C-alpha cells in the first residue's frame, strides 16, 4: 500500500515539472529551423507510408512489357521501369520498407542498447566493463559489413534485415545511454532515491532511465537515417528486400544498368533515399540542439 501511494505521488510531481519541460521543449523545437524542417520531412514520409496504397496509382508488381522504360509522363510521373511498372507507385510504396526497417531496427536497438547502456553506466565496475567491452567488440566491425555477414547467415529477408540492423546499431545506442547514465548517476535525485532505500532496478528504470532519454532520442533518430541507408545498401547488394518488393536500394540496383537509357529508374529512388536520410539527420541534429543542456545554458 505504502509503495503504491508513494509511486502515485512521485508520478504526480514529475508530471508537473514535465509539463514545463515539454512546453519549453516545444517552444525551442519550433524555433529551431533544422529540427522543424527535419520533423516536417519525417512526418511527410510517415504520412506517405501510411497512405501509400491510396497514393500509389498502380499496383507495384503489375508488369507491362509494352510500356517498359517509359520516360516520366502524366500517366507515369516518375516513368516506368524495365518491366513497365510505375516507378512513382513503387517509390511511394518503398517508403514503407524504408521506414519499417529504419524504425524497426532502431526500436530494437533502443530496446536492447538503452537497457545495456543505462545498466552499465549506473552499475559501473565489472558489470560496466563486461557489457561495454562486448559492445565495443560489436562496434569494431563496420556497420554494413557486420549486417551483411549476419544476413548471409540469417538469409536474405526483410525481417532479417531489421534484426541484423538492430544488432548492428545496439552498441551505438548503448554507448550514448551509458554516458548519459554516468552523468546522471551522481545527481542528487539518485542519491535521494538511494537514501529512500529504493531498489537498484527501480532506481535504474524509474529514476535514471527517463533522464537519459534525450540523448538516446537524438542518437536514435540519427541512427534511423543510417539504418535506412544500410537497408538500401543491403538491398542493393541483393541481401535485403527481395524483388518484386519496391525497396529503394533494390530499385537503384536495377536502375544502375539503365543509367544511360532510362536514368529515371535510378534518379527517383535515389532522391527518395536522400530526402529520407536528410530528414532524419536534420531531426536528430535539431533534437540535439534543442535538448542539449549546454545550448540551454547559453540561451
Amino acid at each position, binding site marked *: 500500500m505504502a509503495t503504491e501511494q508513494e509511486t502515485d505521488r512521485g508520478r504526480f510531481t514529475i508530471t508537473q515539472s514535465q509539463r514545463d519541460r515539454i512546453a519549453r521543449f516545444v517552444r525551442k523545437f519550433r524555433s529551431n529551423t533544422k529540427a522543424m524542417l527535419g520533423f516536417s520531412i519525417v512526418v511527410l514520409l510517415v504520412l506517405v507510408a501510411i497512405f501509400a496504397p491510396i497514393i500509389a496509382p498502380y499496383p507495384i508488381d503489375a508488369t507491362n512489357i509494352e510500356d517498359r522504360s517509359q520516360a516520366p509522363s502524366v500517366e507515369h510521373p516518375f516513368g516506368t521501369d524495365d518491366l513497365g511498372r510505375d516507378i512513382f507507385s513503387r517509390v511511394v510504396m518503398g517508403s514503407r520498407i524504408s521506414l519499417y526497417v529504419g524504425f524497426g531496427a532502431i526500436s530494437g536497438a533502443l530496446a536492447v542498447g538503452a537497457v545495456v547502456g543505462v545498466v552499465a553506466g549506473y552499475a559501473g565496475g565489472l558489470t560496466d566493463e563486461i557489457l561495454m567491452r562486448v559492445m565495443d567488440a560489436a562496434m569494431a566491425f563496420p556497420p554494413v559489413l557486420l549486417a551483411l555477414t549476419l544476413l548471409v547467415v540469417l538469409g536474405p529477408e526483410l525481417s532479417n534485415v531489421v534484426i541484423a540492423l538492430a544488432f548492428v546499431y545496439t552498441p551505438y545506442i548503448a554507448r550514448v545511454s551509458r554516458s548519459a547514465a554516468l552523468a546522471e548517476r551522481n545527481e542528487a535525485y539518485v542519491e535521494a532515491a538511494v537514501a529512500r532505500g529504493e531498489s537498484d532496478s527501480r532506481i535504474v528504470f524509474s529514476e535514471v532511465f527517463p533522464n537519459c532519454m534525450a540523448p538516446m532520442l537524438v542518437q536514435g533518430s540519427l541512427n534511423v537515417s543510417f539504418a535506412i541507408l544500410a537497408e538500401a545498401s543491403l538491398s542493393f547488394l541483393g541481401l535485403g528486400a527481395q524483388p518484386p518488393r519496391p525497396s529503394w536500394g533494390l530499385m537503384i540496383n536495377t536502375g544502375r544498368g539503365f543509367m544511360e*537509357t532510362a536514368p529515371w529508374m535510378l534518379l527517383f529512388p535515389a532522391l527518395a533515399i536522400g530526402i529520407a536520410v536528410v530528414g532524419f539527420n536534420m531531426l536528430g541534429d535539431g533534437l540535439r540542439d534543442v535538448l542539449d543542456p549546454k545550448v540551454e545554458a547559453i540561451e
Partner: protein
Amino acid sequence: MQENGKGSDSSDSTGDGTRRSRFDRRTFLGAAATTGAVALAGCTGGGSDDSTTEDSGSSGGSDDTESTDTTAASGGKQGGTLQWGGAVPVQGLDPHIDTSAASKRVLENIYEEVVALQDDYSIQPHLAESMEQSDDNTVLTFNLREGVTFHNGKEMTSEDVLASYERVQNGDYLATGFFDYVEELRAPDDYTFEVQLTEPFAPFLAKMATAELSVMPAENAEKDMVEEPIGTGPYVFESREIETSFTMSRNEDYWGASDEDGPFIDTIVKSEVPDPSVRLQSFLAGEYDFINGIAPKDVSRVEQAPDVRFEKQFPKSLVYLGLNCDVAPFDNKDARLALDYTIDKEKVAEAALYGTGQTTASPATPGSPWVNPDIEPRPRDLDKAQEHLDAAGMSDGFTATFKIPQSYPTQVQAAEVIAADAAEVGINLEIQQITWSTWLSDVYSNRDFQATTSSYLALWYPDVSFYKFLHPNGAFFFTNWVNEDYNALVEEARTIYDEQERAELYHQATEILHEDRAGHLFLWWQPSLYGAASQYKGDIGAPDGSTLQFGDNWLDR
C-alpha cells in the same frame, strides 16, 4: 552402319594447312549421327541449316562457312593486339576440370581435341587426319596428324593422347562418367589412337570434341591439376592475373597455320570487366576492340553506335525454371502444371531478352532434328491453372520460395514477371536472390530449393540436352524428376547411331517431359551477344555458341 577406312587416304593429301580436313563421307555420317543437329547438310556447306541461319549473325551457318573462306583468302592481316573486354573472369585453366564457359572461351584457343565440332554441328577429325568407326560402332580409330607440336616444342604423339584420355578415365574429371562405356584405350603406334567401346555409345565421339577431352602433353596429364596450360592450339598461354587479365599470344609454330585461316592476331589481352554497363561504356569509348556478354537490354545501343559490329550467335544457352519434384508443392504434378499454365512464356522471354531469344518446349537445340515439332510451350490459361490447382487439392494456390542467381539479371527479370503472373491464381513465388556460389551449393549440390532458374550452355549434342540434366544418372541432374519411361528412351537413344531412329526416341522423350511436366520448365533459348570494333574482322564465336575461337580473326589497322 558403314565401311571404313577409305576416306583416310584422301584426307592425307589435303589435311595439312587447313583446319577443315576432308574425310570419308560415310564415316562422317556416323559421326554426324552422334552429334546432333543438322549434320547431314554436309561438310562442304550449302544445304539447309535451320538451326543457325536465321538468327546467327555472321557466324554459324554453313553458308557462312564458305564466306569465311573467301574473306580470309582475300587476306587476313597478321599482327596487332586484340583488346578484349571480358564478361566473366577466367576460372581454372585445366580443361578437364573446369566447367566454366569463361575458361573455355580462352582454353578453346590453347587446347585442341582429336576431333572438332564444325559450324554445321558435324564432328570432323582435327588433331587426327582421319577417323574410322567399326561396323558395330564399338571401335573408333584415329590416325593422328604428324608434325603437331605442343607449345613446349614437343611433338604430339599417340602417347600424349592416350595419357590425356587415361587421365580422365582414371581420375575424377568432367568426362570421367563417359568412360564407363570404354573398354580399352590403345596407342598401337605413334600416330594411331584407338578407343574400344563396350557397346555402341553415340555420345562418346561428341564428348571427344569438347574441351573435357582436350589433348595435353603426357607429363601434364600426370598432374592432378594443370595450372599452366600447354596445348597444341593457335594461341599460347602467356600470363594471367586472377580476376584482372588474361593474355595469350600467337603460336608461331601452329600446325594448321595458313594465310587463309590464320592465326593472325599477335596478342590477345582479355581484361576482366564483369560489370556489363562498365564494359559497354568502355567499349563504346574505344577502349576495347571486342566485348562479349552484352546485356539484351543494351542491344539497341550497340546497334545504333557508329563503327561498331554487333554480332549475335544463336543459340548459346537454354534458360529454364527448375522445380524440385521431391518436395512440396512441386512434387505434385498438378501443382507443376498449374504453374506452367500461369506463365506467359512469350512475355517472359520478351521481358528478359528484348526480342533476342526464342521460347521452347524441348531441350534440344532449335532447328535440330531432335526437336519434336509437335510440342509447343503451354499457353497461359488461368482456367486450366485453376483446374490443376483444384486437382492438386490446393484450390487457393500455394507458396514456394523462388531462388534466383542474382548475377543473371535476365533471370531476375524473368522471375519477377513469372511471380507476378503466378500470383493471379494464388501461386505465391517468393523471390530470393542468391549468389552464384550459393546456387551451386544450396540449389544444385544440396537440392535445397522449391523453385529456381538457371541455364545450360552448349547443348549442341542431344545427349547433354536429354541425359545430362534430366536423367537421374546425368552429371547435372538436380530437379529430382524421375520417369522410368523417359529414362529408358534416352538410355536407348545413346546406343543408336541412325539419326532418324534416334530423333524418334528424343521426340517421344520430349513428349513425356511435356506431359509429365518435368522439373525443368524450359523458358527460352538465348544467343551470345558480342560487340566488335569495325577493324576487327572475321567470324566471331565458335561452333558451339558459348565459346570463342580467335584463330581466323584479324585486325585491319
